[in-house]
């Protein structure tokens, strides 16, 4: 049973609805603003992480222990004999937290049309698995994914431009093979992709993994890399450790993106830490708004307060009443703010405003960012902001409460 002061405090809110609404409104806007801004920031960081790791490199990579950093073609997983590919991939798939895994073969070589010859990185992929694991095939701009057995190849947009190559054109691909000979063959351009990452679009061509293995005289069981998708990027380090322990045959080295792209982890942390500054500023303003209002309210209701004091109300009760009022205000504001914030965030999560009309995309930390203001759900921020807001409301009430009990009742009632 709430004390009478608390009930008085609560009822005070109802007695001046307009003021309550406006004050709560100010707090709610603060809360909603903070939460939405957090959602936007998380969205931007998430986009950066997704693109930075999701386009090509994946959140976790598995290699032979001696493969990095030289990327020697001969150092395939499982050594010269290779490995049983399906078993390895299934083992990766089965790990909790892993959404998909895809095999890769890498080679450095030449691509040439009649007009031009350029150096290229060739990546052999399994199109089905690759589409589940990374975003690269999703950036296909023209044509389609190359089919195995048909000598088809997928070119980056800038590479195609340099070579002046179109869909259906013939490309000569040359690469040193694993037996020392010069692997070469004719390919047809089946598609062109545009990831937006300049380095990738100009240097990398994709082909079916079996096709590349044949070009390189590699047995089907010999691959260089398994790329793993982990939807929650921050879970990657733990899952990488688990995989490292779990996979003993063949001998592998498992790395999460925080190891091979540490600068992205740093940036994410920086974005989150700079956001606290925003939080502080917005809530400072909000505290002020509430304190202001409560102060004025206390002033306007000074007769009422004086009367209560004259009737015997102790200072403790009064303070409790005022604080209870502020607390209730805070809770209501949090409720409204959270509701509106959630609506906005959900809306912009599924239908984010696309600013590509105004700007093109750009790169940050080597990943491509599209100016789409997509929000993520900043659940922790919902909690933190709520605590901050309610604390704010209560603290903001303290000074007015103090003023209220300091004013001698008799003077106020005398008509001051």
């Amino acid at each position, binding site marked *: 049973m709430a004390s009478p002061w608390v009930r008085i405090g609560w009822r005070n809110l109802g007695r001046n609805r307009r003021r309550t609404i406006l004050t709560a409104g*100010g707090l709610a806007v603060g809360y909603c603003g903070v939460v939405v801004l957090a959602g936007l920031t998380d969205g931007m960081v998430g986009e950066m992480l997704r693109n930075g790791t999701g386009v090509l490199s994946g959140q976790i990579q598995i290699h032979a222990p001696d493969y990095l950093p030289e990327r020697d073609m001969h150092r395939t997983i499982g050594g010269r004999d290779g490995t049983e590919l399906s078993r390895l991939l299934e083992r990766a798939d089965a790990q909790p937290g892993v959404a998909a895994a895809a095999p890769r073969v890498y080679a450095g070589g030449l691509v040439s049309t009649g007009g031009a010859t350029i150096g290229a990185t060739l990546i052999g992929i399994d199109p089905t698995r690759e589409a589940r694991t990374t975003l690269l095939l999703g950036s296909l701009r023209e044509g389609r994914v190359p089919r195995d057995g048909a000598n088809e190849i997928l070119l980056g947009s800038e590479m195609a431009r340099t070579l002046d190559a179109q869909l259906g054109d013939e490309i000569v691909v040359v690469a040193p093979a694993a037996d020392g000979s010069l692997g070469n063959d004719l390919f047809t351009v089946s598609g062109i992709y545009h990831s937006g990452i300049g380095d990738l679009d100009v240097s990398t061509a994709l082909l079916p993994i079996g096709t590349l293995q044949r070009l390189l005289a590699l047995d089907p069981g010999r691959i260089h890399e398994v790329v793993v998708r982990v939807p929650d990027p921050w879970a990657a380090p733990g899952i990488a450790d688990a995989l490292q322990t779990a996979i003993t045959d063949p001998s592998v080295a498992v790395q999460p993106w925080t190891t091979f792209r540490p600068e992205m982890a740093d940036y994410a942390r920086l974005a989150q830490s700079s956001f606290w500054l925003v939080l502080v500023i917005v809530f*400072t303003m909000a505290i002020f708004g509430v304190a202001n209002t409560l102060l*004025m309210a206390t002033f306007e209701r000074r*007769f009422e307060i004086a009367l209560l004091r004259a009737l015997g109300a102790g200072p403790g009760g009064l303070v409790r009443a005022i604080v209870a009022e502020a607390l209730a205000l805070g809770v209501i504001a949090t409720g409204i703010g959270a509701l509106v914030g959630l609506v906005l965030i959900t809306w912009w999560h599924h239908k984010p405003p696309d600013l590509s009309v*105004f700007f093109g*995309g750009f790169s*940050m930390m080597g990943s491509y960012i599209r100016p789409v203001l997509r929000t993520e759900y900043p659940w922790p921020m919902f909690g933190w902001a709520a605590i901050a807001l309610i604390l704010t409301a209560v603290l903001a009430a303290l000074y007015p409460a103090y003023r209220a009990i300091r004013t001698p009742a008799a003077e106020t009632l005398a008509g001051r």
Partner: protein
Amino acid sequence: MMTRLGLLVRLALRNLRRQARRSVLTASAMVLGLALLVFTRSIGDGAHETWIKAGVRLASGHVTVVAPDYLPRRTIEDRLPAAGARAALDALARSDLAPLVEIAAPRLELRALASSPRGAVPVVVYGVDPTLEPAFSQLTTRLVEGRALLASDRLHAYVGVGLAQRLHLRLGDRVVLTAQGADSTIADQLVRVAGTFRSGLPEVDDGVIHIPIATAQAWVGVGDDVSAVAILLHSSRDADRVVRSLTAALGTDGTAVALPWPTTTPELDSAVKLDDYGNYVFHFVLLLIVALAIVNTILMAVLARTRELGILRALGLRRRDTATLVLFEGTLLTTVAGLLGAALGLAVTFGIFRDGLDFSAFYSGEMTAAGAIIDLIMIPEFRLDHMLQNVVWIFIIGVVASLYPAWRATRIEIAEAMKFEG
């Protein structure tokens, strides 16, 4: 009409003075809000300006003068003739442009192969003027070992640290540069490593070499021609003006054009604009909170003065005038408060934080975005256009926040009002 309005204004002023407590409370919200707005906006503007400058230093400057067909392929056939470069430099020395220019650096950019006994890698070679380049790219400040280029150098190279590692180069080692010359033959050039730098950008550290421009010109046989004249300005906002002046000076004979940095480095432009957008959202939220706080307090003030306003009505003030009175009070108060807050913000920003807000504690190593290394010390910048915008917003908030209370004031019935205590 005039007298009536004048009367209302005087009334408004007097009312504000009489209700000091309420006025102060209302004003304080505005003061704080504006101070915060000015602070964050100035820091944000300063951060952008620094970001842009850092980015264009490692690219082609705020303004670039090139031959019309040079972009995007950047081949040696599309280079800028010596006459065009000279015309641009002359124009920049004129009295109307010179104060805007920090440095104008001619450069020759070449795609080449760099060979050492341990291997060969493709690189981008910049022929630079050693007296101008330090101020331009500031790569000299990122020295790792050895020294940067000197004016007296001929066969010296300033090499990215990643490149030096890949080719197993130490100071003084030979590097042979191979490129396609102006006459399409392949030309070799020997240089020796004078020093290594670390910019923090992998593509620069692993693939860029600076050599003296005269050496580069002789190597590929282009005489005094260059690839571009890269111009760094004091402020990125002068870019359009400089482009216009240069375009007029360079004439229409088609040997040279002047390009602003959003054209030569569109990635940077997009990134800055997007960050700007994020800032506008933040400011909107801040101002909305301020507005709501103000509406509240003004409204409360009006309601508390019900009796007083009722008496004024009884004395003959029309409903309309009551509203106007409240509107004046609110607007005046918030405008003055807003201006005070802006002044406070300016004082704090440029007084206390003039040297910048340091974020580097949160981040180890170098942060890059859109081809620039982000300096984590954010120095505020004063922009008159943004300050004027702020003032306009102050006024608008003041008016809008007073509207509802003003309307409420018209609803006061004289008889009812008398029941309130004053």
